[in-house]
């Protein structure tokens, strides 16, 4: 009798493990993200600057993990070198264990393949994240780095004070790179119902972007994807559903929207080659929800 009971318990445990393993690989709608086809629509040239844009990730949930798994699958066919993080890298606590649960454990396979993450700070992020080894912030809340013919400006939109504005102006004034890209947490333009456009931030940074030839701006904060109609020649994107989703939050018929996706979480694949920037937006189910090409980067006015 004891043997039968033990066998029964063992069988139940094995069955539960299998069910758990299956659940981990399946989205909430039951459709497997792991097995969805990888459909790359980018040129994928060896000499391109290839990267991912993702925002508002730091939840540590299985949905964040699922999206990371889709990113990993795309990395196998599109070996992006680095990931831009739009902030809110860590929701809730920021103890050592949180760094592991909400970041390292989620992106470990990409970290192991030497993919670098370049973070911006969101309104849920402690300033000390700038010292974190995997965020590559050089101990600064705002910083700059170059990859090929592309300049990246990671800004701290939580606190756009005079010091940061002066730094940005000075840095851009001497930047002769073909592509100048800025990224930060709060979106200057947004069709989100919960937050919307950050007009006070826009009032300060947009004239600087226009003057110094910034072509593309990435932001997060809104938990969806949105491509804004070009504003003053600048392409604005929101990619803020890397760990959280605000379903149905994009205002229908917004005059700002070129394309939006708020039905599931997503990330952006970007490829820059000479004077063209290609982008493809991938959902948690592995589907392409937007894509296109931006040609001829802006010049300093």
């Amino acid at each position, binding site marked *: 009798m004891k043997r039968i009971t033990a066998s029964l318990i063992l069988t139940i445990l094995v069955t539960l493990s299998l069910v758990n393993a299956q659940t981990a690989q399946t989205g909430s709608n039951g459709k497997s993200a792991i097995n969805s086809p990888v459909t790359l629509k980018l040129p994928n040239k060896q000499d391109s600057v290839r990267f991912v844009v993702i925002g508002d990730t730091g939840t540590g949930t299985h949905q964040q993990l699922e999206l990371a798994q889709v990113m990993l699958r795309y990395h196998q066919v599109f070996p992006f070198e680095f990931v831009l993080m739009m902030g809110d890298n860590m929701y*809730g*606590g*920021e*103890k*050592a*264990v*949180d*760094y*592991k649960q909400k970041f390292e454990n989620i992106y470990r396979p990409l970290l192991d393949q030497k993919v670098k993450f370049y973070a911006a700070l969101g*309104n*849920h*992020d*402690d*300033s*000390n*994240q700038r*010292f*974190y*080894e995997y965020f590559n*912030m*050089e*101990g600064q*809340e705002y910083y700059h780095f170059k990859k090929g013919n592309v300049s990246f400006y990671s800004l701290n*939109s*939580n*606190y*756009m*004070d*005079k*010091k940061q*504005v002066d730094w940005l102006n000075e840095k851009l004034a001497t930047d002769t790179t073909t592509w100048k890209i800025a990224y930060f*947490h*709060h979106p200057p333009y947004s069709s989100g119902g*919960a*937050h919307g456009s*950050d007009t*006070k*931030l826009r*009032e*300060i*940074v947009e004239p600087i972007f226009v003057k110094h030839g910034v072509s593309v701006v990435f932001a997060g904060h809104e938990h969806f994807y949105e491509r804004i109609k070009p504003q003053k020649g600048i392409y604005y994107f929101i990619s803020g559903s890397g760990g959280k989703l605000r379903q149905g939050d994009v205002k229908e018929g917004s005059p700002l929207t070129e394309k939006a996706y708020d039905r599931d979480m997503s990330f952006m694949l970007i490829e820059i080659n000479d004077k063209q920037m290609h982008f493809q937006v991938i959902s948690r189910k592995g589907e392409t929800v937007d894509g296109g090409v931006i040609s001829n980067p802006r010049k300093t006015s």
Partner: protein
Amino acid sequence: MRINPVLAIVGAVALCLVTVHQSAKGQTAHVLSPNEKQIAETFEQRAKAYTKMREQLEAQMPKLSKEAKPEEIETHKKQFQERVRAARTGAKPGDVFTPEAATYIRAIIKDEFKGKDKLEFRDTVLRESENKEVPLRVNYPYPESQELLEMPATLLMRLPQLPKQLRYRFVRSNLLLVDRENGLIVDYMTNALP
């Protein structure tokens, strides 16, 4: 020499429009009165006195690497908090935000947020923000699990400049001074919202 009245009216209207436009953009160069200048300087000196003290304490600690492990970040922050808290025992509200400084800052905020801006800003700070549970206690840490509400960029251009180690933050209708590294609430002033 006679001035053409039509030209004078056109000129006056144009001047008004330019002033209104600049004011709406928050870019009016406000010239500080000697009294305002004195108040701002005193406030900035008090903020600097705090940062000088905390810099001396930080210098005695192991330096945090730019490629630190999460455990190192956590330990550094905790130890830094403990040292500053011990050094500032007895710190109280108003040590940096003197009554004069608080009045001066309230006036700047009131001037920055008018009409629709004021309503939107109050809405963001009082309704939308998730940081309502932050206890207001000088020399205690800002809870790390709580949102740090974005400071409006146009307002930051007008407020007295702080040393790089300090940040202004809104919690409910209060304006806080927070140390960006150790997360301690250095001081706060009440009724900051217009």
